[in-house]
């Protein structure tokens, strides 16, 4: 069993090393090698899954750091939570790898791309399988590093590297909070191992638990692009689309949710921080949705929708229904991954064009992509049979049941907006008259790209079944609760059918409004826009958040350190004062030097003056005793 688990890690590692070191020679096969590595790791995961009743598996491979009292082993742990995450990650990654073979086939950084994609999956698996917080942090920063490299993949043009740095730095801001939380845990528990921590949480006071969980949540906000630190995700779209699909939809951004779920005992101990998690989630969901409403860039809309859906997961995890959050995470991975891949194939067809205003009526040219896109959109809007409905509905239901009415209401409104912007996107790109400028001639993507999309589409459809209410409870709920524990009993009496109807109505209403505005009366959006001028421009420029951050933090920091710290403090104050000490001695030298004017008479006068002064001093100090 240990070997099998280790193999899950070894395969991506070997993939990375082969493509990384021998990249130049294995160029044509790089895609195949990488995908093979990930698929075999997926198979290993399935093997582990088959023997899932022997879980939880926990094994320490070697002692990584053992300083005095601070010993951190390299240990892997598989329980139902990490198993689900493992399957989702390896599954979606394999599909994205296969898709990328087609998508990146004439890119000159071909082997480098696949090398780092493998490294990414490796770090993500380490993050999931780690059995202590520090190893999770290793995976945490590892994925941050890979996302930096992959976003900046096309380093020739200026925007991607800048976006890469922004992603890495903003993640680092979150990581700083995460580290502090981690340090609190260590100083209190004396170890970072999950089992050691979760077994004796009795010693933990609620206030300390709150502090720990809040700091950990700062890390989650940074990594999963929640409200204050979400700015890097939209810019991350500079990277290749499969990267966005894998990293910025399915796996990396969900790390924050996984971490909160993993430390569910701590969160459940401190109601305040759970409340903070849920409200931040709700705020982000609503806020991101507003930004997606008016955006014209295909991938940016999907990016904001990811931020919004992550908000939902945090609502789920915040209110205490951890399994619901993870369930939505899984389903989201499927349909959001699908949407991104589809967007990628649109981009591939339109060789890089993303502006929806220049698209339209593409369904005729790209039937498969269009159909698949619609399935994804339906799933995300929460239309019943598809998976989105089950996971989003459970989250909203749980939110209401656990006495969070405001959050429920915000969730419902956001669901409406989600449906609206998704179908606005579909109608603008695939239906209506074609506004495609003539130099573009869109065509359907090759099979190697379409098949993974169809598999994902199937998963988006079937994915929800796992959450279906069956005889003995919801299978997903029981499976996950073995590690996450059952959510607290409902506080507010609600009848589930009514809730279901409301959320479905929201979805259909959103779709209808989108149809009305973009197909029936194309002039309506313009009229609506200038009727509510301020709101529209707010959404349009994404509430100027980027500019505010630049104005508040980046520019002043640069100005202070350049003009004040360096030019003034370093050069003028410290360095100048050091040189002045030198000049001081030279100055005394100059004054003393005046004595040496070459005239013997002045020498003798100075000497006799010296005699008199010294004599006076000797008599005065000695005293005539």
């Amino acid at each position, binding site marked *: 069993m240990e070997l099998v688990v280790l193999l899950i890690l070894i395969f991506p590692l070997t993939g990375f090393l082969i493509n990384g070191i021998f990249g130049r020679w294995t160029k044509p096969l790089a895609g195949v090698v990488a995908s093979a590595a990930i698929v075999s790791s997926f198979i290993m995961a399935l093997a582990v899954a088959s023997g899932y009743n022997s879980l939880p598996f926990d094994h320490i491979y070697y002692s990584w750091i053992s300083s005095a009292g601070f010993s951190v082993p390299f240990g892997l742990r598989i329980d139902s939570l990490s198993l689900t995450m493992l399957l989702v990650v390896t599954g979606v990654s394999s599909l994205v790898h296969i898709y990328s073979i087609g998508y990146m086939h004439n890119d000159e950084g071909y082997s480098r791309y696949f090398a780092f994609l493998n490294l990414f999956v490796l770090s993500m698996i380490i993050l999931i399988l780690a059995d202590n917080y520090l190893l999770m942090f290793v995976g945490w920063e590892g994925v941050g590093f890979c996302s930096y490299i992959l976003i900046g993949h096309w380093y020739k043009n200026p925007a991607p590297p800048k976006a890469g740095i922004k992603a890495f730095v903003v993640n680092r801001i979150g990581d700083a909070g995460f580290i502090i939380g981690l340090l609190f845990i260590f100083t209190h528990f004396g170890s970072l191992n999950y089992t050691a921590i979760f077994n004796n949480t009795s010693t933990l006071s609620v206030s300390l638990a709150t502090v720990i969980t809040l700091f950990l949540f700062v890390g989650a906000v940074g990594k999963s692009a929640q409200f204050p630190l979400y700015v890097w995700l939209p810019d991350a779209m500079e990277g290749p689309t499969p990267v966005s699909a894998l990293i910025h939809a399915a796996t990396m951004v969900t790390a924050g949710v996984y971490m909160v779920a993993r430390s569910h005992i701590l969160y459940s101990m401190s109601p305040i921080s759970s409340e903070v998690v849920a409200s931040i989630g709700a705020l982000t969901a609503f806020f991101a949705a507003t930004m997606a409403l008016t955006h014209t860039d295909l991938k940016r809309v999907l990016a904001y929708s990811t931020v919004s859906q992550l908000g939902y997961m945090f609502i789920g995890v915040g209110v205490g229904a951890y399994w619901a959050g993870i369930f939505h995470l899984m389903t989201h991975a499927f349909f959001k991954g699908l949407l991104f891949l589809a967007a990628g194939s649109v981009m591939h067809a339109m060789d890089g064009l993303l502006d929806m205003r220049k698209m339209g009526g593409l369904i005729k040219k790209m039937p498969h992509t269009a159909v698949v896109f619609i399935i994804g959109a339906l799933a995300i809007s929460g239309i019943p049979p598809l998976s989105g409905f089950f996971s989003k509905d459970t989250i909203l239901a749980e939110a209401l049941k656990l006495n969070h009415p405001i959050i429920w209401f915000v969730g419902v409104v956001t669901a409406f907006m989600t449906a609206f912007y998704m179908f606005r996107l579909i109608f603008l790109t695939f239906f209506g008259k074609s506004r495609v400028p003539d130099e573009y001639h869109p065509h359907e993507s090759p099979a190697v790209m379409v098949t993974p999309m169809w598999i994902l589409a199937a998963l988006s459809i079937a994915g929800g079944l796992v959450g279906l209410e069956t005889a003995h409870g919801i299978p997903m709920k029981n499976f996950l609760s073995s590690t996450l524990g059952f959510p607290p009993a409902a506080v507010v009496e609600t009848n589930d059918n009514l809730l279901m109807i409301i959320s479905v109505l929201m979805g259909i209403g959103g779709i209808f409004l989108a149809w009305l505005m973009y197909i029936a009366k194309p002039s309506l959006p313009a009229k609506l826009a200038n009727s509510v001028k301020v709101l529209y421009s707010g959404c349009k420029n994404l509430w100027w958040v980027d500019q505010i951050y630049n104005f508040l933090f980046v520019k002043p920091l640069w100005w202070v350190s350049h003009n004040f710290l360096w030019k003034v403090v370093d050069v003028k104050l410290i360095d100048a004062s050091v040189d002045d000490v030198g000049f001081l001695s030279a100055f005394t030298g100059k004054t003393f030097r005046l004595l*040496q004017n070459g005239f013997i008479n002045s020498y003798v006068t100075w*000497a006799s003056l010296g005699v008199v002064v010294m004599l006076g001093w000797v008599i005065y100090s000695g005293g005539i005793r």
Partner: protein
Amino acid sequence: MIIMPYHLSDFAVIVPELIVAALMLILFVVDLASKNRKKILSSISIAGYLAALLYSVINFWPAVQKFGFVGQIFIDQAGNFINMVVTLTAILAVMMSRDFLDRENIKDGEYYVIMAASVISMQLLSSTHNLIIVFLAVETLSISMYILTGFFKDKEKSPEAAMKYFIFGAFASAFLVVGIALFYIYSGSVEFSGIAKANAEGLLFIVAFFMVMVGILFKIAAFPFHSWTPDIYEGAPTPVSAFMSVAPKAAAFILLIRFLAIAVASITVQWQNLLWITAVFTMFFGNTVALLQKDLKRLLGYSSIAHAGYMLVGVLAFNHLGNAGVLFYLFGYVFTNMGAFAVCEYLSKKGNEDASIKNLRGIGYKYPAAGVAMAFFMLSLTGIPPTVGFVGKFYLFSAAIDAHYYWLVILGVINSAISAYFYLSVVVEIYMKGDAKESSVWLNSLTLKYVIAIGIAGTLIFGILPSLPFNAAISAVGIL
């Protein structure tokens, strides 16, 4: 008043002086005989000084004080030690001046005769407790130095330097005599022990002490009486200024140590305050003004003032370690300073003595040995390990710390940091300013190369293994 006849055993006390006196006579005669082959004179004087050196080295041990001439003159380890220092400096000076005088075609051999006279006076100075003999020795020393300084009669700077040196020297020695006279009036005797017996603290006594101190402080170029040093070092011929920077200082310091230890023990607090001020000002003056110097000889002049200041710190410590430190420092100073002046002479051109530091540019690559030697001399003067200068400073400062002079040592240490700048700016010229100009013609004299070799050898060997000379110094200061 019974006049005691002097018998043979008395002369056993002044053997070194006798050897050099004999040398002087021989030189006198040979000078008359030899028309213009003057190099023979330098070889003879080297042989003579070597004999004196060997004598004091041989019977350095056991540590005993033999008195002669009714107890006025004696020979002890300290005397022998200073004798070694003086004769060694004389040898190096003679080796330096051998080809130098030839190049400047100075034909008169009195140069060596007068130098021998000054050596005798210094040997005498270091072996007497009687102030009158001290006065005689100081005067003969000063007079011979005036003459040697003005030896290059037809040059521009040499007479002027002699004139200045004469006026300042005479002025100081006048005060010395007045001091001795006042001591005589006050205590009835001119010997250190006699003065000490008076055990007085009266104003007249202090004035007397102070007058004598003026004479001594002038000789070691301490602060109020230092202004002659840079001009004379620049004006005098290089071997003379080299000789002048080491030998007279050694004799003056042993005199100062003996005088303070024995004669004026009663007013210790006063003279320690006085010396504290003098030491600090000497160090700061020497180091800060040297920062601005462009001429190497003037720089070495100011540096010798600064080193007098460091030695005063040792004297101020007033304990065995301090006095031994002063002796050891003088011993190390011989090698470093003579070597530095040798390199300075090595690069001077015929006729004009201008030894500006710019001439040193790039000699590190043209003459690697001279470059490395000069670099090590500069490091030793700054007091950077593994040189003798560092070990010397270490002894001086640790003695001062042992005597609780914390602030004085801190000031001293700051001074050596200041001094690092101008010493290393010499190293900058040697190595870091590109290659040497072709036009710099060097004085190709074998003996000069020997001096540099001895200098560098002494600086490094005693820097790494200082225990031999230091043990000699420690035992020498046992019985002053």
